[in-house]
């Protein structure tokens, strides 16, 4: 490339860069910022301080009550059982029920 062509290419690049760097002159109306701020506040719903408390459903209450009754029944069977193996089996089942009941109550209390 000759020196003249090189110079022209540089000039063209500079012209293109200058054109791309020019900023369009845009004027927004006075009070635009205030209007947008007001519209934003109006569009944002007020936030409650605490999340609304969820009431447990009827089914969950019935399930917990049924589990408590079943647990009482199993404890009763464990007391009345004669052999060693049935007593341990009943107690193991009671422990499992207690764990399940505890888990359910934890879910109801802390994740509601």
């Amino acid at each position, binding site marked *: 490339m000759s020196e003249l062509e090189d110079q022209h290419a540089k000039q063209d690049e500079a012209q293109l860069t200058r054109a791309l760097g020019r900023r369009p002159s845009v004027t927004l109306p006075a009070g635009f910022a205030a209007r947008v701020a007001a519209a934003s506040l109006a569009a*944002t719903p007020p936030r409650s301080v605490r999340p609304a408390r969820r009431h447990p459903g009827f089914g969950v209450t019935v399930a917990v009550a049924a589990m408590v009754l079943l647990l009482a029944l199993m404890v009763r069977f464990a007391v009345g059982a004669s052999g060693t193996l049935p007593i341990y089996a009943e107690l193991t089942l009671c422990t499992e029920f207690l764990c399940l009941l505890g888990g359910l109550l934890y879910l109801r209390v802390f994740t509601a």
Partner: protein
Amino acid sequence: MLTASELEQLVGEHQAMVARLLVRLLGTQEGVQDLAQECFLRLFRGLEGFRGEAQVRTYLYRIVVNVAHDARRQRAQQQRRTVSLSEPLDAVADQDGFCWEDRLAHGGANAEQQLQEREFQQAVEAAMAQLSEPERAVLVLYHQEEQSYQEIAAALALPINTVRTHLHRARSRLRGLLQVEGKGVRV
């Protein structure tokens, strides 16, 4: 949560940038005010997780690019459905208020030179409308808003190398389009 006066201050600081970016990305001033308002509404909805001026600005760049993208798509759909009565870019550019301010001083340029510059500017804008959206966004953010590769990459959620590629390709395509038009670039 920000108060009304803080929101107003935030809008005041960025409104000029948002408006000129929208004009440049859309190629018209039509509806810019409403779109700028939409940009700020989107900003305020997602503002809580942001700290610091730089991050807000970067986030705002991304919002403006997305809003411009949505507006272009919407307008294209409307144009497909109805016969367009909108004016071409050249005509829009001649309207009052749609002028270009020089950041470089014109040292005593005569009328002919100014006319050539104006024609060249219009040709560049028309050529830019033919670029893809990522190319146009990268080009505008780099040249007009003087953002670095890293800042553009953060704003557009693109890898830096992709930003470089878009920028290089956009300039090459612009040069090609201008050569076809016979504007500016010496052929």
